[in-house]
């Protein structure tokens, strides 16, 4: 690789000639390590309203873990055994918590206009995470394999058929829904949430509306080409 002998760019940083080096330079300029895993946060983050995003992520981690246990053991286990029913219940309740934390997070960010300061994509990925989560939860309710899931499926099929996707997203096909629920949709939620969190780290936690633009804690000690000039 040529990174060791790369000629220096005008700003003193090595100029990369390979696509891997250029990609690394691009990523590090936008998300240096101290921004990805910071030791300090601005004082305005010391508020309960700022914890709901990470609370939703914590609930999501439990959903993934309990979902993996359920998927590996199967319905014959989680419908019958005591431990299986318990894990099944905690899977449902962690989904309830996930959505409650996500909605409170959404309300908090909406009322502080969190799309300010070049954070539009952070806002959009957050909304996308919410929408994909709703579809994922919907397929989960269809997988209960009880009268309730039958009822939900046969109400939902009319709506899905009416918009023309019923042949590809067939709520009466349990095998297809199982695959959607345990592979594609959780992966989609995880990717969107990961992008959302990385964008939060790149642009920093949004300050309250009343924070003055000249507030010293809003200004980074090191220039950040990814965010500077977007306010």
């Amino acid at each position, binding site marked *: 690789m040529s990174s060791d002998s790369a000629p220096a760019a005008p700003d003193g940083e090595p100029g990369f000639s390979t696509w891997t080096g250029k990609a690394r330079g691009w990523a590090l300029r936008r998300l240096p390590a101290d921004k990805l895993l910071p030791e*300090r946060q*601005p004082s305005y983050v010391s508020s309960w*309203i700022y*914890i709901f995003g990470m609370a939703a992520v914590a609930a999501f981690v439990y959903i993934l873990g309990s979902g993996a246990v359920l998927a590996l053991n199967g319905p014959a286990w989680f419908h019958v055994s005591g431990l299986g029913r318990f894990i099944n219940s905690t899977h449902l309740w962690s989904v309830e918590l996930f959505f409650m934390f996500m909605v409170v997070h959404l309300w908090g960010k909406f009322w502080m206009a969190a799309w300010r300061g070049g954070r539009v994509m952070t806002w959009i990925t957050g909304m996308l995470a919410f929408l994909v989560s709703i579809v994922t939860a919907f397929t989960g309710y269809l997988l209960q394999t009880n009268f*309730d899931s039958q009822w939900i499926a046969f109400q939902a*099929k*009319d709506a899905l058929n*009416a918009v023309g996707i019923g042949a590809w997203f*067939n709520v009466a096909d349990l095998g297809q829904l199982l695959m959607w629920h345990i592979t594609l949709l959780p992966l989609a939620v995880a990717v969107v949430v990961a992008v959302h969190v990385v964008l939060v780290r790149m642009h920093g936690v949004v300050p309250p509306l009343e924070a003055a633009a000249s507030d010293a804690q809003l200004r980074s000690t090191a220039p950040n080409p990814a965010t500077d000039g977007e306010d």
Partner: protein
Amino acid sequence: MYVGQEACSVIRKKASVKVRLSPREAVMLGSRQAGAGMPDAGVYFQWGDFLIQFGNLVVITTMVVLFILALVIPFPHGRKRK
């Protein structure tokens, strides 16, 4: 044509026909479920045109309370922050 697509086409045609529902019929699907004698149909509250299932009311109320408390309750100060 794939059988599922044919069935969907028929259902789409049916869905496009406008059906006038009486106020009695225009209730939430959940209360229809209750009428159909489904197990664990739930409890419903109604104020005029507003109808809500008890579980949904609990979840929405909890979220509103959480939101208000998060704004009002002071955050404990641990390590000194920048």
